[in-house]
């Protein structure tokens, strides 16, 4: 029979590991994240994960002063997100955003054309080449 304290220790370790994994995944989105709102959203998510870390550490060590830090961190994260939203509103779009959107649209059109070509060759039609060319040409015009 496993004791309750052992289960609790394992639960705390598991929670810390999962939180670290989600922290890393969120950081990947912030670094990659094609537009500024994506990065702001990632920062918001980081604040939420940090509050979770603080709760776990407070339980693990019994040092409950960290709860006040969690509340203050939530306040700072909220104000930062609001300020960033105002900044996005006043800044408008930059050339980087337009460029990344065009890149995303091009890759989506390519994916669609490939899927259409595959569906057509799967159904056994002979006119795969010109039909696929026509669809991709139309999507490029959009």
């Amino acid at each position, binding site marked *: 029979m496993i004791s*309750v*304290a052992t*289960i*609790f220790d394992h*639960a*705390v370790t*598991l*929670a*810390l590991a*999962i*939180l670290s*994994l*989600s*922290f890393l*995944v*969120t950081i*990947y*989105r912030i670094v990659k994240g094609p*537009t500024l*709102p*994506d990065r*702001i*959203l*990632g920062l*918001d*998510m980081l604040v*939420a*994960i940090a*509050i*979770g870390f603080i*709760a*776990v550490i*407070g*339980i693990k060590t019994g040092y*409950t002063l960290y*709860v*006040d830090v*969690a*509340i203050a961190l*939530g*306040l700072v*994260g*909220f104000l930062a*997100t*609001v300020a*960033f*939203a*105002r900044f*996005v*509103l006043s*800044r*408008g*779009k930059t050339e980087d*955003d337009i460029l990344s*959107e065009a890149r995303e*649209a091009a890759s*989506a059109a390519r994916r669609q054309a490939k899927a259409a070509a595959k569906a057509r060759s799967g159904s056994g039609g002979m006119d795969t080449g010109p039909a696929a060319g026509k669809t991709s040409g139309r999507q490029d015009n959009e």
Partner: protein
Amino acid sequence: MSELVTLVSAAFLVIGSFFALVASIGLLRLPDVYTRMHAASKAGTMGSCLMLIALAIHATDTGTMSRALAGVVFFLLTAPVSSHLLAKAAYAVGYRLHSSAVMDDMKPKDNA
């Protein structure tokens, strides 16, 4: 009784961290900023609130417990407001929805 409290607190911790993981996977996998917001601001808030509730259950004194619950209430109040402001700003500036989106209720009507 105290063993039961410890077990419930451990369960809340693990469930809350799983919610945070689901939110970050959604942030990674979903296609545009609006769907990512749907993952981060619901599952992420749920995750950190569950972990603060675990802390409140685990705490022995009422001061820590009430502060942790106040943190939960505060976080539940502010997270939707901030993500709504961010979504509104992104839409007003003109960040487009992903091409697989089927509905856009805020699209301006033509019959002006």
